């Protein structure tokens, strides 16, 4: 079926944007599969790394106390991997949808390019924060790993996405009012 001469067609975002979005989804799929396939190995690695740094995790040498601390850290380690899987899949789709809207609605070239760049980098970068968090937990402990991931990834990339989304919402509203 050909939809010819449509009055209001979608405009496709630049190819690199679609590539980044699909790459994000692919990484999420691989992350999910790896989590399931290498669960034991990942848990063992994290546990060994934590046992190698007892001071960082507040391990006291009493089995009952230490096991509770290790369990909590391992739950967070696993949660970080799961959240990466979910967010990378979701944000891949968000990038495709929102950049398509920006490419279609934003008339000014500079605004369009900036919004698309913010949506793409923010959307693809934000989920990586969960991977960073998980990877850093064994070496730096729960709170320090979270703080590093927050300032290094979540805040800059998350802010980029939020700013771009509200900017796009404003543009859409203006387009509707201006019609």
């Amino acid at each position, binding site marked *: 079926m050909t939809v010819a001469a449509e*009055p209001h067609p*979608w405009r496709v975002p630049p190819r690199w944007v679609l590539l980044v979005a699909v790459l994000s989804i692919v990484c999420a799929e691989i992350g999910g599969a790896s989590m399931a396939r290498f669960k034991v190995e990942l848990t063992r690695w994290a546990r060994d790394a934590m046992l190698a740094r007892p001071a960082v995790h507040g391990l006291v040498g009493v089995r009952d106390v230490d096991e509770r601390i290790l369990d909590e850290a391992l739950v967070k380690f696993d949660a970080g991997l799961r959240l990466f899987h979910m967010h990378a899949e979701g944000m891949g789709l968000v990038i495709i949808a929102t950049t398509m809207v920006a490419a279609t609605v934003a008339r000014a070239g500079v605004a369009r390019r900036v919004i698309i760049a913010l949506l793409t980098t923010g959307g693809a970068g934000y989920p990586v924060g969960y991977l960073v968090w998980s990877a850093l937990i064994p070496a730096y402990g729960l709170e320090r790993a979270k703080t590093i991931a927050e300032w290094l990834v979540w805040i800059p990339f998350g802010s980029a996405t939020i700013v771009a989304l509200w900017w796009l919402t404003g543009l859409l509203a203006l387009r509707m009012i201006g019609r």
Partner: protein
Amino acid sequence: MILSGPVRRPPLAVVLVAISMLALGETAGAVMSRLKPEIQRYAAARVTANAGAHGFSGSAEYDDEVRDRAIFAAEAGLSFFHVHAEGVGLVLFFASTLAAATVPWRRVRATLYLLLTLGGLYGAAVLEVGRDVGIELAERWILTPLGIAAIAGLVGLLLVTARRRA
């Protein structure tokens, strides 16, 4: 059947609802993460201010448990909102694009847009979480009708697409 050439977009109002839901979902996620202690403090203060509504007994142990449950429910509500607003925003975007591209009848298309957009507002309605009576009210008057609108819109789209293929 292969779709080729330009793909038609839904009306700007529908796109605006979808993008607004995504923006609200993202913002709620950030707020949840960055302002967790402040949200907990605010919820605790509101619960204490409305002690009667929450059935406080005067026993510190019991009241603390009730307060903790209410705070947990408030946090869960924000978390549901984050997830649902993101998901429903995307569903509205892709389903309405599909409707714009494949449904040739104007009135049917308009009905589908309306149902899908109402369903899109489901994400915002999920924020209305309270315990017991609050949950019942939200379910009966907001979540159920908007959820049904989304389902009806998607089923309608499915039927129209199937009919077009036949």
